[in-house]
């Protein structure tokens, strides 16, 4: 039975967490999910905003090498032994996602901030190599 009132249509909907099916298995035991992200590019930088609920700053790993950006967030479920699950709508697991970047990034200037489970990553673009004109001399 579906009830749609104009009130409900405005409501925020749940994005079902997508479990990651990859060949390269993580060394850490547990399920990995693909976090929802927003990615946008300004003149100076590439910005990545990712939803990583349940992670704190020390649980997040950001790796950039050979234009491959890898985000990993380790989540500790933090459940007590005597908690009996009655009803479960979402699963808990780690987060990981990889992006291939088309831009040259200045590795030394990457910055990241985490608040309320949202990671904001700023990847400043590397200054373009100045085109050089090569003089050909004839002798």
């Amino acid at each position: 039975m579906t009830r749609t009132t104009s009130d409900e249509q405005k409501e925020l909907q749940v994005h079902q967490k997508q479990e990651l099916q990859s060949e390269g298995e993580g060394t850490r035991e547990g399920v990995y999910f693909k976090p929802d992200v927003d990615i946008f590019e300004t003149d100076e930088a590439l910005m990545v905003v990712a939803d990583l609920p349940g992670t704190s700053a020390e649980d997040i790993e950001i790796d950039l090498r050979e234009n491959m950006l890898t985000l990993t967030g380790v989540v500790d479920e933090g459940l007590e032994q005597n908690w009996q699950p009655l009803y479960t709508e979402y699963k808990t697991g780690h987060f990981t996602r990889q992006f291939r970047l088309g831009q040259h990034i200045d590795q030394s200037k990457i910055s990241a901030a985490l608040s309320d489970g949202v990671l904001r990553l700023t990847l400043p673009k590397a200054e373009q190599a100045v085109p050089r004109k090569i003089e050909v001399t004839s002798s």
Partner: protein
Amino acid sequence: MSTSLWFQDPRAFIHNELRNFVRSGSPWSRKDWNWPTSRQRTGVFPPVNIYDDGEGFRIRAEMPGVDKESLDISCKNDQIVIRGERTLQNIDDEANVHRREREGGQFRRAVGLPQPINPDKVMAEYNHGILNLFAPRAESAKPRKIEVQ
């Protein structure tokens, strides 16, 4: 479940009817019951998990990036209502958007519990994008030990 199924396979139809009949006797199938398993509530943000720790109920909701100030939690008898808003930071018009997967907006979620709770003792915490609620059982719902004479 499709209702046209029985045209193709009468056995499946009978099987479904039987199953529905058996189910209709259990409280799980009662549509008016506000227990969150009722179908119309799934898909409403935020997703919740509910645990029983003996003393009461532990409710967890995954909702990253929600402004703590916007959270409004109210409870009565056997229901907790979570309201709030998730605002996304504006993206500069000049910016070139590559991916837009996150969503913002208002939400309201009513969570029904199987037993009455003590509304005065409900505690809430919002950490790392996860809302943690603890709702102790009402005195009337606690098991009482009976002394054998």
